[in-house]
């Protein structure tokens, strides 16, 4: 099965990315983690995302576009990136999620990828 590991970050971690003193260790931890997934041969795809400051949300209501600055929901934890892994079951996917740097200070959501529709 394929699972999407959805990494949440807090404002403090998004700030670390821009902090010259903290950016090194921050990216170092993520690079090592993503590298381990890739080397285990279970990586399907994935990306890191820019912070919520760069987010724009759009809704179309009655044919009108409502464009809004910011992410879809104002929450303490915001989407920071995702990876899709191939895992035999939920426990194996949770193992990978638990190793993410953000699991220790924010959270990782694990969702099964919807299978392609039956022919």
């Amino acid at each position, binding site marked *: *099965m394929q*699972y999407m590991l959805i990494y949440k970050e807090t404002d403090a971690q998004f700030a670390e990315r821009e902090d010259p003193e903290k950016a090194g260790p921050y990216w170092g931890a993520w690079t090592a983690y993503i590298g381990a997934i890739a080397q285990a041969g279970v990586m399907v795809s994935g990306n890191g995302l820019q912070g919520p400051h760069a987010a724009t949300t759009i809704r179309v209501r009655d044919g009108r576009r409502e464009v809004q600055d910011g992410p879809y929901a104002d929450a303490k934890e915001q989407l920071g990136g995702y990876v899709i892994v191939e*895992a*035999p*079951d*939920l*426990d194996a*996917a*949770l193992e990978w999620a638990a190793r993410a740097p953000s699991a220790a200070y924010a959270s990782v959501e694990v969702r*099964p990828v919807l*299978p*392609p*529709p*039956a022919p």
Partner: protein
Amino acid sequence: MADARQAAEGVARASYGRLVALLSARTRDIAAAEDALAEAFRAALETWSVRGVPERPEAWLLIAARRAFGHTLRHRAVRDAAAATLSLLEAETHGEASPVFPDERLKLLFVCAHPAIDGAARTPLMLQTVLGLDAGRIAAAFVTAPATMAQRLVRAKAKIRDAGIRFEEPDADALPARLASVLSAIYAAYGTGWDEGLGTGLTGEAIFLGRLLVALQPDAPEARGLLALMLHCEARAQARRGPDGAYVRLAEQDTRLWSPELIAEAEGHLIVAARRATFGRFQTEAAIQSVHAQRAVTGTTDLRALCTLYDLLAEHAPTIGVLVSRAAIHGEASGPEIGLALLDALDSDRVASYQSFWAVRAHLLRAAGRRAEAAPALDRAIGLSDDPAVRAYLARQR
């Protein structure tokens, strides 16, 4: 027809969980397995009333259920439908040749108590899938609306099917945590019976699950500890209420009403568990009950032994309930002021609405001759009671 119904019901009781476990282990689809089994029971009633009960009714039901299962899955647009059907058909062909089928119930227990399942759904899920209890009965035992309980069960089954929770026994390093979660779920079922008194509770069901777990995991000392604990408590079921239904404290119970068979079974499990010599919360709690049980033979209660066991429990599993019971026992053994000092040391926020704390406090204050202080503590204990019999018992102390 009556014979067929009786036979079908007999098989249902004895092997419902085995059949659900077997049918859902490959597909992870518990709801579909239950539907297929219901279909098989319907077919059994029809066929058996005409042709008689087959020699191996369980195998008959399994084959009928597999057929129904394959049928349901073919009509559903699930991704694994084709593969699942094939594997089921294959199992069926082999199954008929080799009539011994595996017991997958342990896997089912682990799945039901998986940490990814909503905590409130774990015990109900176990009761439904392993014992075949209906949502209404489970809801009554957990004081929940039947619709809410039914929805909780449906959601949990969908999560198991879709999230890919594996029907496997956990690895050695994950086993202790996963087993603890199975044990808590079984103990929660027992707790419903304990609080509700006699009637609506699930104590018998919990003990069935406890015995099953010991049979499937004979080397897990905590499984035996939990079973021993439940059996010791169950042994006293008849003595807990007086003839008028009034609550009777353990120390005042008539030991002739205790069940020697259940006590003996409990002691047997504790002895086997103790051979492993590892600390366990349930083993220690069972050992405490074992000390109480000895009153039936010796006529007295070994308070020193109880103090030691509660100290051990307080060190490893300091729940508020354990800490309050420990204070009560030390108060009994060494004088009420000692017990009161232990109570005073507890975090006042944690005990503010904990009924046992106030009941024990009132008891110790009275024993210490501090009647003026005992009265408000007793009122608080009465106000916090949710069991009418306990409330009445406390009110008589006023």
